[in-house]
């Protein structure tokens, strides 16, 4: 081995994962894995993972970059506060999710004593305080700043609300000894979403404070930078794949679905604007790069809820080719052992059915809807949220897709269905699977070597459908894998 290389580290909730990338050939050199030992000493798991990698490579190269992301130690636990639930509270939610947070609670209007008890109980890493458009309501955000100031909370508070009230809110919180910073309003004017400043502020706090607070910086000898929470790395990879590196075309609008044991995460990079001129857009505009997290759709921790949301035991049984009684048995087995990997045909088919349902429901919640409103002048189509029907690429990742069989049919759960014509899911996307869990690595690398990151990610994703993958210099025709 000779060329320059990069080491990309993910301190995950269960495992510390390493990916070594050859920057010249833009290929994966090797991987390493160790337990995530954040609660004791993070360097123990890190050493194990490096040993694992060294064994594969024979010798560790001199890495040009050693970049890390983290979702360890409970992830980036956040609480958001806004004014009207569908407006600034929703904008704050978008900002926190886009910043890779594990959003544990959201609040609207004036914080009550009960609300404060709930917030304190969550022990959040960061609180995002929004409310009011610029020049709009300042009473509620100032009031909420007072309530937060009077609490025993010590976590950083980011103020991203009405510009005219931000000084007052900052003053109140500072006076009470809180770690406070002010950033741009998440909704400067009604219906205008501006979450990038808040996202940047959250990331700054993550690097400056959270990394230390969670003991992640004990491993600082092993990396040059712990740059972002892992979900942000995935979002950055999605953005790079969609846009392409500077001066080169990317894959265009795309979707990433990450199906995990506890949650199903969906990322879209797409404007989502109505595809036909005569459709009216309703509700809040949504972020171009949008992330949603479905906390009730986990393959292991809440398989029962997936079945419920998918229309009940009988529906899932039919999809899995099993009897309802068999489904009950399989479900019990999972509940008894959340680490369980499927064994045998029956269990695999059940897991595949579960995963397909989880993906369908998660993408349905992420995507926008269109409905016909009857007016005096005739029917009008009204769209809410993002129209993802023209999205041409869907990338799947997560255990159920990587270890399971029939990734193509599992991932096809994301597709538009005539059964739900109002759900604006992708109509005819090419399906790709991130078999080696490389998206986070590409996202980390995107900041320093976007060209290499793009080519590396592009080449590593395995096509599992028969659609051609568009974009890039040459169009690639692929067959079922």
């Amino acid at each position, binding site marked *: 081995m000779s060329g320059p290389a990069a080491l990309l580290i993910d301190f995950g909730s269960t495992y510390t994962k390493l990916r070594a990338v050859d920057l010249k050939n833009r290929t994966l050199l090797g991987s390493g894995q160790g337990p995530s030992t954040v609660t004791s000493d993070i360097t123990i798991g890190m050493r194990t993972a490096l040993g694992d990698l060294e064994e594969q490579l024979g010798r560790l190269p001199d890495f040009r970059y050693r970049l890390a992301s983290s979702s360890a130690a409970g992830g980036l636990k956040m609480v958001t506060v806004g*004014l*009207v639930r*569908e*407006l*600034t509270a929703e904008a704050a939610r978008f900002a926190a999710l886009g910043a890779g947070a594990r959003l544990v609670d959201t609040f609207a209007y004036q914080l009550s004593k009960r609300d404060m008890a709930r917030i304190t109980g969550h022990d959040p890493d960061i609180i995002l305080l929004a*409310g*009011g*458009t610029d*020049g*709009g*309501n*300042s*009473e509620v955000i100032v009031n909420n700043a007072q309530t937060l100031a009077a609490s025993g909370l010590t976590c950083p508070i980011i103020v991203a609300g009405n510009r005219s009230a931000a000084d007052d809110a900052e003053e109140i919180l500072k006076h009470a000894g809180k770690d406070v910073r002010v950033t741009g309003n998440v*909704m400067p*004017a*009604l219906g205008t979403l501006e979450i990038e400043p808040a996202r940047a502020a959250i990331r700054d706090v993550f690097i400056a404070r959270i990394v230390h607070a969670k003991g992640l910086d004990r491993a600082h000898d092993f990396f040059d930078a712990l740059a972002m929470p892992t979900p942000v790395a995935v979002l950055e990879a999605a953005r790079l794949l969609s846009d392409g590196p500077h001066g080169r075309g990317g894959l265009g609008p795309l979707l990433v679905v990450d199906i995990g044991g506890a949650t199903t995460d969906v990322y879209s990079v797409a404007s989502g604007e109505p595809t036909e001129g005569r459709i*009216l857009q*309703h509700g809040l505009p949504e972020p171009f790069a949008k992330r949603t997290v479905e906390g009730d759709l986990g393959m292991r921790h809440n398989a029962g809820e997936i079945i419920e949301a998918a229309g009940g035991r009988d529906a899932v049984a039919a999809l899995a080719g099993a009897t309802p009684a068999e489904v009950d048995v399989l479900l019990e087995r999972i509940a008894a052992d959340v680490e369980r990997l499927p064994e045998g045909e029956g269990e695999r088919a059940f897991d595949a059915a579960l995963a397909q349902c989880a993906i369908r429901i998660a993408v349905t919640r992420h995507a926008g809807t269109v409905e016909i*409103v*009857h*007016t*005096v*002048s005739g029917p*009008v189509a*009204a769209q809410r949220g993002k129209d993802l029907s023209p999205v041409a690429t869907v990338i799947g990742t997560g255990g159920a897709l990587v270890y399971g069989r029939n990734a193509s049919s599992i991932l096809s759960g994301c597709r538009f269905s005539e059964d739900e014509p109002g759900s604006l899911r992708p109509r005819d996307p090419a399906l790709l699977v991130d078999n080696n869990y490389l998206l986070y690595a590409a996202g980390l690398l995107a900041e320093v070597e976007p060209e290499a990151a793009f080519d590396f990610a592009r080449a590593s994703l395995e096509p599992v459908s028969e659609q051609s993958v568009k974009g890039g210099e040459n169009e690639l025709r692929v067959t079922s894998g």
Partner: protein
Amino acid sequence: MTGHTLVTGVIGSDTHIVGNRILSMALEDAGYHVVALGALTPSEDFIKAAIETAADAIMVSSLYGQGELDCKGFRDLCIEAGLQDILLYVGGNLVVGKQDWDGVERRFLDMGFDRAFPPGTRTNDVIESLARDFAARAVDAGMADR
């Protein structure tokens, strides 16, 4: 700038946006900060927008004859949302058929609107009414302070 914020929109399943847009532009020219919600706006959206923007008045348009149904309980919704003192205007083709305007106006004032405007109202009339109402409120507020 007058320093006042107004929320405008066409209520209910009504797509007639032209008159409302002309009114919104005229109000902006008159120095108001206008938050224009456009056509097909549910009553709740007027109220949510008014809360976030700390609006001083809500101006509801209705052109398709269903205004009376759509506007029922509008003031109550405002009170429920803590906007009990907000100035409420309504205007347009508020009812179906040829009805006596005084009766129509009465019904909308009873619903809690501060003013109702018949079809064909000039934008200037609205602007003058606003100026008068805001001035009266400033006087009231001054007296309350004393």
